[in-house]
Structures are given as structure tokens and as C-alpha cells.
């Protein structure tokens, strides 16, 4: 039993509209799982419920055998890294450097370690030249990379990535591809994406949502 996330009989509605119907999924850390499905099928909503941002109507979600009903957002955030579909939503610091160092600063990490790790991420995501740039003027792809980098600095055990490839140029997409490859088996990954090639390339398993229900769940 090395399942990390367990979703049981999950129902969720937003503004009285039923968005998720009877979702049952088990996910473990050694798997790369993708969720696909048309616009509005509930992919983002599912990701948000699992990371505690939206409350479900009924059913349960367990992370590491702990019901998320008994977990606070920070507690969930320390285990799961959630990448918002719209990176604007999760970038809040005025400069790139502050955005990356934010969490470590409040966790009282030593300054030299913060410096080292931020530089590492700046290199990986090719953001070094933007270190002191204002986050509001970044391009879409730069924001996407910054959001990813900030999330990884949190050392999550599991990643939920909502459309991480949107706005990335082919080269950056390839870099992301390599990065994800290097993390597979260490960190579990749940990818939400319309990018068929990207999904097929990485996934061990593909789950298809349609109108809030799982219509397909198969090995790739």
C-alpha cells in the first residue's frame, strides 16, 4: 500500500452546479498520472479539491492516510505542490527573488541556504537575468516558470500541475519535460493537460474526465 492520495466517492458542486460526480482514484508517488478531458469537464476543480482549495459536498480525500478535512491548507501545501492553471493567481511577491525566497524566509531557513537554493532554481528555469525584475511585467511563460520554481522550492512530495505547458515555447517545454523526467519516482505527479503529446510522453496512466465523471482510466 504505497498510495499517497486516495479519493473516495467524491462529489462536488460549485454554485449549485454539479461539477464532479462520484470520483474514485488512488494515486501513488511512483506514478505519473495525467488527467485529460474537454473544457469544463472538472479537471481544475478536481485538482483544487485535492489540494484543499475547494470543499467537496461529500466523499473523502486522503493524503498520506490523513483525511484532508482534518488538515489545514499549510499542512496540505507542505505535502502537495499545486500549480494553478493561471500563474497570476499564485504569484504574489513584487520581485522574482522575493517570490522564490518567500516560503523559506518564513520557515526561518538560513540565509545562505536560501541564496543557494534560489540560485539553483533560477538556473534551472532560466530566470537568473530576471532575478530582481518585477513579477507583474513578466511574460506568460516566465510567470509559468516562476510559479513552478517557487512551488518546487517547497520540496513537495507530490505535484499537481494544472496545464503547466501553456505558454511555454518548444525549448522550455522540452526543459520542463526533462525536469519532470528527473523527478519521476521521487515525487508523484498528477498532470492536468490538453497537450496530447506531452501527456502521452510522460504518463504511466491516463484518466479521462467527461462532464464530471471518470469515463476512462487506463495504463499508457
Amino acid at each position: 500500500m504505497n498510495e499517497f492520495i486516495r479519493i473516495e466517492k467524491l462529489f462536488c458542486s460549485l454554485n449549485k452546479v454539479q461539477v464532479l460526480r462520484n470520483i474514485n482514484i488512488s494515486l501513488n508517488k511512483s506514478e505519473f498520472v495525467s488527467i485529460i478531458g474537454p473544457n469544463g469537464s472538472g479537471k481544475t476543480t478536481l485538482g483544487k479539491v485535492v489540494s484543499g482549495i475547494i470543499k467537496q459536498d461529500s466523499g473523502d480525500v486522503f493524503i498520506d492516510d490523513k483525511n484532508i478535512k482534518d488538515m489545514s491548507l499549510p499542512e496540505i501545501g507542505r505535502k502537495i505542490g499545486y500549480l494553478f492553471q493561471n500563474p497570476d493567481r499564485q504569484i504574489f511577491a513584487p520581485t522574482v527573488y522575493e517570490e522564490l525566497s518567500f516560503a523559506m524566509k518564513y520557515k526561518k531557513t538560513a540565509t545562505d541556504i536560501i541564496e543557494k537554493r534560489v540560485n539553483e532554481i533560477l538556473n534551472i528555469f532560466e530566470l537568473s537575468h530576471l532575478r530582481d525584475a518585477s513579477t507583474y511585467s513578466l511574460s506568460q511563460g516566465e510567470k509559468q516558470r516562476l510559479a513552478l520554481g517557487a512551488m518546487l522550492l517547497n520540496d513537495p512530495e507530490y505535484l499537481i500541475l494544472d496545464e503547466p505547458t501553456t505558454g511555454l515555447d518548444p525549448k522550455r517545454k522540452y526543459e520542463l519535460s526533462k525536469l519532470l523526467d528527473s523527478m519521476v519516482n521521487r515525487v508523484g505527479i498528477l498532470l492536468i493537460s490538453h497537450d496530447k503529446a506531452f501527456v502521452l510522453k510522460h504518463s504511466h496512466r491516463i484518466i479521462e474526465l467527461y462532464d464530471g465523471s471518470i469515463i476512462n482510466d487506463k495504463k499508457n
Partner: protein
Amino acid sequence: MIKKIDPRVKLLIVMCISSLGLAFTRMPMLLAVFLTGMLLSQVLKADLFMLIKRIRIILYLFAVLVIIQSIFVRSGDSLINIGSITILTTEGLSRGLAYLMRVLIILISGAIIATCDMRGLIQGLVQMKLPYDFAFMTSIGIKFLPLLMEELKDTLTAIQLRGIDIKSLPLKERTEIISYIFTPVFAGALTKAKKLSLSVECRGFRAFDKRTSILILKFSPVDYLAITLTFLLTATLIAANQYFI
């Protein structure tokens, strides 16, 4: 019937109670304005409950302000003491309460305005000879408010998901984080405003000086009655303030 009350009348009512609320200084009069406002908001079917639910977060801030106002006023007789230190004086208490009343009056005014439909409200402002640009800006502002609230919530979520437990941080760091929550929202609002103005220009806003409108507001007998009552009530309250208390 009540639902059809002209937005201009509602604006008048709101102007009256909020200016009285700001002009009066004595507690009994403020209470009277507050009660009048309550009564009117009920007659106009304003949803006070919904309003309170929406601004829950800000209510804490108001509560803190009321307490600060009360504690820092030193004049008057002492009411609560700890040892030889006076915590609360009569004057402090009455100032705090007066402040609370004013906030409540403004909130009620907001709830009354919220019963107007947006289109009617703009048309009301325009027909009161306010330039259309201003009326339009007002309506945009009101429309964006819930969006801003949503963004505030999102940022708060994003910060917490980085594993930061805001509640367990010491006060100084907690205030620092508040600035982190507000900056993106204001910066975002500015960007949005820029985009909006561009898109509005693109669609030919202000291409012609004169705008016509399908919707034209007309006062009904009920509206005239409501206006008269509003003036009477306002006059009574002012008179009471001058002569009785």
C-alpha cells in the same frame, strides 16, 4: 411596488442618512439615524445579512478600530480600571460607540444601493446630470469589487499552500504578509483598468458626445411620496438634533 422605487430616490435616501450620520455627533441622534436607516432598508428590502456575510473579513478591522478608539480616549470618568490604570472612560466608550454607529449607517447605505439594478443606477446618475463617464466609472467600480475580493482570497490561499501557517506567525510577520496579500490585488487592479480602458476605447466609447438611451427613468407617484417622506424625516432628525437633545 417597493421594488420599483426609482434609483434616484434611493440615492437621495442614502445621501440623507449618510450625511446625517456623519454630521451628528451625539449618541442618541446617531442611534436615531441608525434605526431610521434600518427601518428604511427593511422597507426597501435590502439584504443586510448578505452584506455582512460578504464583508466578514473587514468586520474584524472595524471591531479593532472601535476598540482602539475607545481605549485611546482619556477624557471623561473612568469606567474600567486595572489597578491604577484606567482602561476605558465614559468618553472613550461613547466615542467608540459613535464610531460603530457611523460604520453601521454607511453599511446600511451600501445595502440600500445594492438593491438597485446596475443599469438603473447608472441611468439615474446620468439623468441627475452626472457626466456619463463618471456614472460608467462608478458602475465598473462596483462590478469589480467582488472580483477583487475573490483575488484576495486566492492570494491568501496561494500563500498558505506554500506551507505558511499565517495564524502561527508572530504579529510582525503577520502584518508583513498582509502587504503581500494586498500588493498583487492592487497591481492586478491597475493592469485590469488599463486593459479595460483600451478595450472600451476600441469599441468606440466616447466617439460621440451625446449618448442616447433606451432606458429612461420616470418618477412615479410612489417616488414623489418617498421623496417627500425622506425630506420630512431628514428635517425631523435635524430639528431633533437642534432642539431636543
